[in-house]
């Protein structure tokens, strides 16, 4: 049962200095991994892929530059410069080469890249043409799937171009027996093989690869031990010298062996975390239940008098900073979707053990305290909540929420555990769940969850319905009939379902193609050494080595489609005030917004030309003709324009999802099912099933920018609603009403995660009573079977000021969508989206 002491230990002076250091430079791209990987690949041509991967891993760890940052207590950095990124050409590379000249100045997540690095990478990239997993995946996809991707109906971009990540490994095992122990297990399995086994060859190569990567990890830690010892010798400050000597000692012992102290456990944990992200570029490598697996080491030290709670807190704070000292470079489009340099390293505290007892402990509180001390985006801190959660833990979490950094996210055991059981997990494994990345639950150490398999834009589907499967002159969907001839709401809804089902099929085709490409080209022996039951099954996670296998693609736009279909049902079929043809035409003309009256064509053309000339451009006759033709394409009779605007006003005056209105909420539930049920029943190449999620990360902004006007009155190219949240600004009845609406969706079936963002004005959480009410709000939403909740607590004024004066708000962290990011690093459009989310005040009039 839970037992704990709350220390609220103060912040050590070291912490701010470490933070200043890692935020002292612009993130940079480093070439070392890419170059070493390529060297190794060139030297191992013709060998089995799993062997080549392990040799490349070894070669990288043997040679990659290492560094100890000033005053660190926990060491190990994937890059020489803080918050910088290595590259992973085995997945894809051409986008980076294309962006060499623009990546330092792009809007989302810029990186500096030196000419020297560019030259080294250009040389390395020569090898990769035709050898990447993304090229193989493309060749495996059906033409129809590729076309839908091109038309942005869904985007499997995440794993298409990068490693998979999205995993929580057996940290507990490494802490306990070290890589020497895992190596011994692999050795034993190897010895047990019989040369007559049908899969002898693949098993042998896999196990040998595991052993090699274990050796590589040990070798890497020893390099750090030597570096620390050398720095200790050269150090004149006695205190720091002692620290460095202890660091050297720690790195000699772990992760080769089991940890014997809490400090060693922190060091061992960190090596696991950073090395996984050296083997693959997959993000969302999630520490999971840190408070649970670290606790025995903390407790033993505390009982033996070797450790004070204050020093334990300092070590945890140091680990938190290391989690922020790692970056990934993504292509410009993905960077916009995952904005904020985030690695989505989700770490969760509290909750039940496998026997259903609450296991909140000292460390659960200390993890919350570490985020209060560092106020940084990583880790993506989460908290498990159930009836047995100590009230004090929720209050402490509320205090952290009140700081406005968007952490922690709150998860409901009472929904997630049964949801996982419904997907085939044992009750024990389900009770032990942790969170991956944004909001995706899994049983740690036993799962290859492929949790972020694709984004599925539910708004694009309605466009296909309205155009009988056509998009921009191409047949992308299927023919569901001329929408203007449909005579009942059910017909419209059925067409929506059919278009969804077809696109889901294509998405499954695309995801499975990528899945196979990863298995063939990028198996991960090191990662697999820490996932049950890869050693037993003799194969990597990419080939089905894990006990549990899933593929989880996310739908988003539920709220827009609920409001939009409600508008159609109400205005066309119930009130008969408009026709489907009216809707179609109005949406095609973006409800009249941005159109030009026929009489104004000449004037508008002349104005554009004048503007261009004033801007220093030379404009010829043919240019003018071209501009005129573009203007012509926006021509609309004023009478029609007025009619479209009237329609939009009628739509806007209808009830909306998010206000606790039974009728609309019931339709929203059905709309969510069109996607979540459609995904059920498909299988992946690893022997697992598909499960839907309902969340967009921050892709609701860039993917909204590729989406035309929708029947909820949303204008073309504007953001789509995020997660299961109501459309921004439409939930006007306060947080309880909004939460009630959202809770009416079926969160169990979206077992890959749902995401509900709520924004609060700080006054709502003021004082102890503010925290009590906040805790009550969460408990009640969870009682109503909502699954996740997260909060932005920052005033609108603050955000507007931060937009105007980014230099004053370098450290302003906001919750974006399942993760926290530095506000000033987000694109303008995403900033606007965050500002425009309805602020839920505690009303006071």
């Amino acid at each position: 049962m839970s037992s704990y002491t709350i220390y609220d230990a103060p912040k050590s002076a070291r912490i701010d200095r470490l933070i200043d250091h890692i935020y002292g430079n612009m993130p940079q791209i480093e070439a070392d991994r890419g170059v070493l990987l390529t060297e190794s690949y060139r030297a191992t041509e013709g060998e089995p892929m799993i062997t080549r991967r392990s040799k490349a891993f070894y070669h990288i760890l043997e040679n990659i530059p290492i560094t100890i940052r000033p005053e660190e207590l926990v060491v190990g950095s994937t890059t020489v410069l803080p918050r910088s990124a290595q590259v992973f050409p085995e997945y894809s590379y051409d986008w980076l080469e294309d962006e060499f000249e623009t990546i330092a100045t792009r809007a989302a997540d810029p990186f500096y890249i030196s000419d020297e690095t560019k030259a080294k990478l250009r040389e390395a990239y020569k090898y990769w043409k035709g050898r990447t997993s993304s090229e193989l995946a493309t060749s495996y996809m059906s033409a129809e799937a590729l076309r839908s991707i091109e038309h942005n109906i869904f985007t499997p971009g995440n794993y298409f171009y990068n490693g998979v990540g999205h995993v929580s490994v057996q940290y507990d095992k490494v802490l306990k027996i070290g890589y020497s122990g895992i190596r011994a297990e692999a050795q034993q399995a190897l010895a047990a093989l019989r040369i007559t086994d049908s899969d002898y060859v693949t098993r042998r190569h896999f196990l040998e690869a595991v052993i090699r990567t274990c050796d590589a990890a040990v070798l890497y830690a020893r390099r750090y031990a030597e570096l620390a010892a050398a720095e200790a010798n050269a150090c004149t400050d006695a205190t720091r010298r002692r620290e460095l000597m202890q660091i050297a000692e720690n790195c000699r012992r772990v992760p080769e062996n089991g940890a014997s102290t809490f400090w060693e456990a922190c060091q061992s944990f960190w090596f696991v975390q950073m090395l996984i992200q050296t083997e693959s570029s997959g993000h969302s490598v999630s520490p999971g239940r840190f408070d649970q697996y670290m606790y025995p080491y903390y407790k033993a030290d505390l009982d033996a008098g070797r450790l004070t709670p204050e020093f334990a807190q300092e070590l945890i704070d140091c680990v938190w900073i290391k989690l922020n000292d790692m970056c990934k470079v993504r292509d410009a489009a993905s960077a916009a979707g995952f904005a904020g340099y985030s690695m989505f390293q989700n770490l969760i505290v509290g909750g039940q053990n496998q026997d259903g007892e609450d296991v909140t402990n000292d460390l659960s509180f200390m993890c919350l305290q570490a985020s209060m001390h560092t106020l940084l985006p990583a880790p993506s801190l989460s908290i498990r909540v159930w009836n047995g959660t100590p009230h004090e833990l929720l209050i402490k979490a509320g205090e952290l929420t009140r700081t406005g950094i968007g952490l922690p996210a709150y998860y409901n055991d009472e929904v997630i555990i049964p949801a996982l059981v419904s997907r085939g997990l044992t009750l024990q494994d389900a009770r032990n769940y942790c969170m991956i990345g944004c909001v995706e639950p899994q049983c740690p150490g036993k799962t290859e969850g492929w949790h972020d398999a694709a984004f599925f834009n539910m708004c694009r589907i309605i466009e296909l319905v309205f155009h009988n499967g056509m998009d921009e002159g191409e047949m992308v969907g299927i023919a569901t009939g001329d929408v203007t001839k449909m005579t009942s709401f059910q017909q419209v809804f059925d067409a929506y379902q059919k278009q969804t089902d077809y696109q889901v099929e294509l998405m499954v085709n695309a995801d499975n193609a990528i899945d196979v490409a990863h298995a063939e080209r990028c198996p991960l022996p090191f990662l697999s050494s820490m996932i049950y039951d890869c050693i037993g099954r003799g194969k990597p996670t990419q080939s089905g080595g894990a006990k549990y296998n899933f593929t989880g693609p996310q739908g988003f736009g539920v709220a827009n489609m609920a409001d939009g279909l409600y508008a159609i049902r109400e205005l066309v079929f119930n009130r008969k005030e408009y026709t489907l043809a009216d809707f179609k035409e109005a949406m095609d003309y973006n409800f009249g917004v941005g159109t030009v009256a026929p009489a104004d064509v000449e004037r508008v053309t002349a104005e554009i030309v004048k503007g261009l000339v004033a801007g220093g451009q030379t404009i010829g006759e043919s240019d003018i003709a071209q501009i005129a033709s573009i203007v012509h394409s926006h021509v609309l009779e004023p009478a029609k324009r007025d009619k479209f605007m009237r329609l939009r006003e009628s739509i806007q005056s209808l009830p909306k999802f998010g206000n606790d209105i039974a009728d609309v909420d019931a339709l929203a539930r059905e709309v969510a099912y069109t996607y979540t049920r459609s995904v059920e029943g498909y299988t992946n190449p690893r022997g697992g099933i598909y499960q839907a999620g309902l969340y967009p990360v921050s892709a609701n902004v860039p993917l909204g920018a590729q989406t035309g006007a929708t029947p909820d009155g949303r204008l073309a190219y504007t953001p789509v609603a995020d997660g299961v949240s109501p459309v921004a600004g439409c939930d006007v009845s306060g947080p309880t009403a909004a939460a009630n609406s959202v809770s009416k969706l079926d969160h169990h079936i979206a077992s890959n995660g749902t995401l509900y963002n709520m924004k609060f004005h700080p006054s709502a959480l003021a004082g102890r009573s503010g925290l009590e009410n906040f805790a009550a709000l969460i408990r009640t939403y969870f009682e109503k079977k909502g699954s996740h909740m997260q909060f932005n607590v920052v005033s609108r004024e603050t955000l507007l000021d931060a937009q105007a004066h980014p230099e004053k708000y370098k450290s302003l962290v906001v919750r974006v969508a399942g993760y926290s990011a530095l506000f000033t690093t987000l694109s303008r459009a995403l900033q606007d989206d965050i500002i425009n989310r309805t602020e839920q005040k505690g009303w006071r009039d």
Partner: protein
Amino acid sequence: MEQSIRMVQGRIADIQRFSIHDGPGIRTIVFLKGCPFRCRWCCNPEMQEFGIQTMTVEGKTKTIGRDVSVSEVMQEVLKDRAYYRRSGGGMTLSGGECLAQPDFASALLETAHEEGLNTAIESTGFADFAVIEQKILPHLDHFLMDIKHMDPAKHKAYIGHTNERVLENAKKIAEKANRLVIRVPTVPGFNDTPAEITAIAEFAATLPGVEELHLLPYHRLGQDKYSWLGREYTLADIQPPENEHMQQLLLAAQRSGLRCQIGG
């Protein structure tokens, strides 16, 4: 009997969920229309008149006031029952002045009690005490009562009525109510000197059973409504009090021995 109180009709201006500054826990406020006072800083001027009226908001006409039954109100209030249970919250009547519709207020409070909800009113106490005693107090858990000024002349100048009845009722309510909290809207130029606040606090401290006093800093959130109603906002040139000044007033109030706080 039960049927009949749920059918009592009254006039409301609005229902607001998730109110967390007007009584304990998460609450729903029902704003009743009509008020005998005309406080110049009032942030709900559209609720002062009993008559149904219109307001022009950004070119659109909005009707303020609708006649509803207790049962219709309760339907909305009960949507958040689960939140009240978790937070110890409930229903608060405000306005306007809920005592101006005593039968309706009484029926709402009684029904809320029947439903097991905690009840509060936010009121000036400006009514016949017999009405308060018989119709309101039996169904009330928290009386949040405004006392705005101790000087009758100034009270009249800013509010339209002198304060004798308010002060007299405060004494009687204190004796009979379950729990009485005194609230002071702190308005620059009206009552924001330490002396004025001290006078109110000292009076409040003499009331039996009163333990708490809340200073509610003046805010301008209602200012736009005056122009929407085509009315003049006569306090246009005053600024919300600085935080520092509020702290001073808080210190002054605390000398009375009451538990004092800024905000509800």
